[in-house]
């Protein structure tokens, strides 16, 4: 595709901190290359703001290659912008054209409170993982990697679920602010494998309990999560989690 430059109007959410009331600010950026990434465009804008003696816009980012899940931006009404299966850092400016107005908001959910501008606090996800999103491994001699036979189809499914980067776009897109796509990806990649079996029941129960405590909503299978997930995590993982939760919850005794 041919390279081109564009002038843009940006409407960006600005908020001093978690306790202040935020609002939209309008900015103009000129001469943006179609080859830039969306975050590079924000770098240009922030440079410009610093030169003008204004405060730059705070936004989250780390790897800038689609693997860390930090770059949470809700762009023109869609988490991570218009491209399918893409994080904000991998979104390129050729997705836009000269004269466009782009609205950028933070993730919106009570469980993801705004820290500043576009940065939200996603430690609720960490606490869900801490509740049970792991396998316990005893130390000792290293077990041969091939001692467990795992079918290719199962390994592929587990791997696909394991690609979740914990970005939170699923929550941002969900009308219920449910974290179930994230949670089910994190239970499924273990539940599908033999190593995940001993803690399978407890994992489902403990992680759902923590999710509810964090103030996420209840899933109603709308599918918005799957549509926006940059890693294209499938909604069938949610069905697997539902089944695991029902089985574990019905089997567990009163005091478990």
């Amino acid at each position, binding site marked *: 595709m041919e390279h081109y430059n564009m002038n843009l109007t940006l409407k960006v959410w600005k908020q001093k901190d978690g306790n202040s009331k935020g609002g939209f600010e309008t900015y103009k950026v000129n001469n943006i290359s179609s080859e830039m990434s969306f975050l590079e465009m924000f770098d240009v804008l922030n440079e410009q703001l610093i030169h003008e003696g204004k405060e730059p816009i705070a936004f989250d980012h780390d790897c800038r290659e689609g693997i860390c899940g930090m770059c949470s931006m809700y762009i023109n009404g869609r988490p991570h912008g218009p491209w399918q299966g893409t994080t904000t850092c991998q979104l390129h400016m050729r997705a836009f054209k000269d004269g466009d107005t782009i609205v950028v908001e933070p993730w919106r959910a009570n469980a993801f409170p705004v820290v500043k501008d576009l940065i939200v606090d996603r430690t609720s996800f960490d606490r869900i993982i801490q509740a049970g999103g792991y396998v316990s491994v005893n130390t000792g001699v290293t077990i041969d990697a091939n001692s467990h036979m795992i079918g290719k189809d199962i390994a592929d499914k587990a791997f696909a679920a394991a690609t979740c980067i914990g970005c939170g776009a699923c929550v941002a897109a969900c009308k219920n602010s449910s974290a179930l796509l994230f949670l089910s990806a994190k239970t499924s990649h273990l539940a599908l494998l033999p190593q995940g079996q001993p803690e399978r029941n407890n994992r489902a129960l403990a992680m759902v309990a923590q999710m509810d405590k964090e103030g996420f909503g209840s899933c109603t299978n709308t599918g918005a999560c799957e549509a926006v997930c940059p890693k294209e995590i499938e909604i069938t993982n949610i*069905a697997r989690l539902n089944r695991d939760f029902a089985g574990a919850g019905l089997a567990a005794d009163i005091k478990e």
Partner: protein
Amino acid sequence: MNWSQFFTSSVGKKLTMALSGIFLILFLIVHVGLNACIWANDGGVMFNKAAHFMGANWVPRVLEIGLFAFFLIHIIQGLVLEIQNRSKRKIGYAVNLGNRGSKWYSRSMGILGSLILIFLVIHIIDFWIPSRFGGLTETIIDGKPYHNLYAEMKYKFSEFEYRHIVIVIYILGVASLFWHLVHGFQSSFRTLGLTNHKYINMMIGLGWAFSLIVCLGFIMMPLSFLFGWIS
């Protein structure tokens, strides 16, 4: 984990909605089947007998108690869910994802359900209460007296002065039911743990077919009276 922890968890609530929903789906089959008796076109003999059986035999009477219980559970849990889920995002978006991420009806289950509830109340006052607690005329079939529910329907849909309003309310109620079912049917099986695309696609297809057939069945009934297709 005790029962209350199970059913008050976010996934537990979903299971409640799915299981009660499936029970109500089964009830719809019975209801539309009974309604179809009007097309025997025998002046309501078959229909009145069927309605009499539903009110007199103890099996449907016991099931009816279960039906009301499941209706209440589905309605109360549904409303609670809707209110709780709406409260999870205190500050909304300036630009919404809308239909880019999901179907409008999948996001509108609360509103569609509420419309069905309004319709249900009208429907119960119109037909169920008179048929169970009196207020209907009698008709003699094979020498025995029966409640003439058929005459009541015929009156409401083809003679009553505000029949057009009644029919519009019915069509709106059934249309809400249609879209509620299109999402609810397949969603309840996902909630019960269907992960295989082969079966998920089957359930989506079945859901559309079921919703269409059942809802057409319901709508054809007042229209048949209005346009005099049956006597």
